[in-house]
């Protein structure tokens, strides 16, 4: 009798439940881990690359209406430069009161950057030395 006795239906079902729950848990946890890892890697890549592109643009000479395309670390980008404002430093001339003989210009550029469809806007200030008549 003892040799032929097996598990009861309840025992089998309970063990099946435990096994199923364990498999389901592991499966979901693994899937979520993979999803988050992929998302995080993508975020990391875009974050690093976008900052690098921004720094790269800032080292270049900026001109109003400049448009460029490129690729960095497998990400496509494009940017456009727009001159927002231009001003000359004020320095009152001695000969003619009220005239400005300031000899550098300040430019404010607006840069619109698109990285893989994501849009970023930032501003950059530039200075340029100009020649002016200065009384000796």
């Amino acid at each position, binding site marked *: 009798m003892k040799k032929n006795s097996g598990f009861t*239906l309840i025992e089998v*079902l309970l063990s*099946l*439940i435990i096994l*199923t*729950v364990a498999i*389901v*848990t592991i499966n*979901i*946890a693994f899937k*979520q*881990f993979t999803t*988050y*890892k992929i998302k*995080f*890697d993508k975020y*990391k890549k875009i*974050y*690093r*690359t976008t*900052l*690098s*592109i*921004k*720094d*790269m643009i*800032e*080292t270049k*000479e900026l001109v109003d209406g400049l448009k460029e395309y490129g690729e*960095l*670390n497998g990400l496509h980008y494009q940017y456009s430069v727009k001159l927002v404002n231009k001003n000359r*430093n004020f320095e009152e001339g001695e000969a003619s009161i009220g005239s400005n003989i300031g*000899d*550098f210009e300040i430019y404010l550029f607006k840069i619109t950057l698109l990285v893989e469809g994501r849009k970023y806007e930032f501003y950059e*200030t*530039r*200075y340029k*030395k100009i020649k002016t008549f200065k009384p000796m």
Partner: protein
Amino acid sequence: MSFMKQDIKKSKHSNLCKGFTLLELLVAITIFSIAIAMVSYSFKYSLNIVKYVNFSYAKDLRNFSKFRDSIDSLYFFMKQKENNILGPWDAFKFLFEGNEKQFTYVSAKPVIFKKRDIVLVRVKFDDNKLILQEYPIYDKNVDYKNPTFDWVNPPSVVILDGIKDIKITYIKDGVEKFSLKNNIPDAIKITVRYKNRKEETLFFKIKSNAYYKSIIGENVYERI
């Protein structure tokens, strides 16, 4: 007697063969399947705890961000020139030195010595890692006029890991240079080749507007 024995045998046999009916089985399986479905459904949402697991690469990204801040806050530190014979105006040079594998600068935003104002920083490629080392400038027994890494093992932070090879170049006046000394570059370009054959190019602009300030400064000095 023989009849009685036969009856006992029959009854025993009938007890052994008695099992669940198909209907009972189906009902039981249905109930348990519903239970499993409910458990799995609840697990699916409760397991969002994965979000809060501190991934090793999250730490990397945090360190990388701090490293970027450190370069952003590059301090135009002047060190006393060695063998100064040309007079006081040529006595000081910018503390910056870099080659293809490492570079040294002074930063106003320490990563390790957070309570210090400025620190000497060395970023170098070592043992398949890009590491950042710091050394406090205004400290006891430190020559603040010409600070150097005196410690054998200065405290360090890993910025990038799993690197096969690295190439660091310095952009100055639109020209890419493989080494730079006593001069501050406009930007630093780091090209990393990882062990998994991936390649990454990173740019770090030196944010300080010292170049533009010097242009303005020239004008100011002319007036005086």
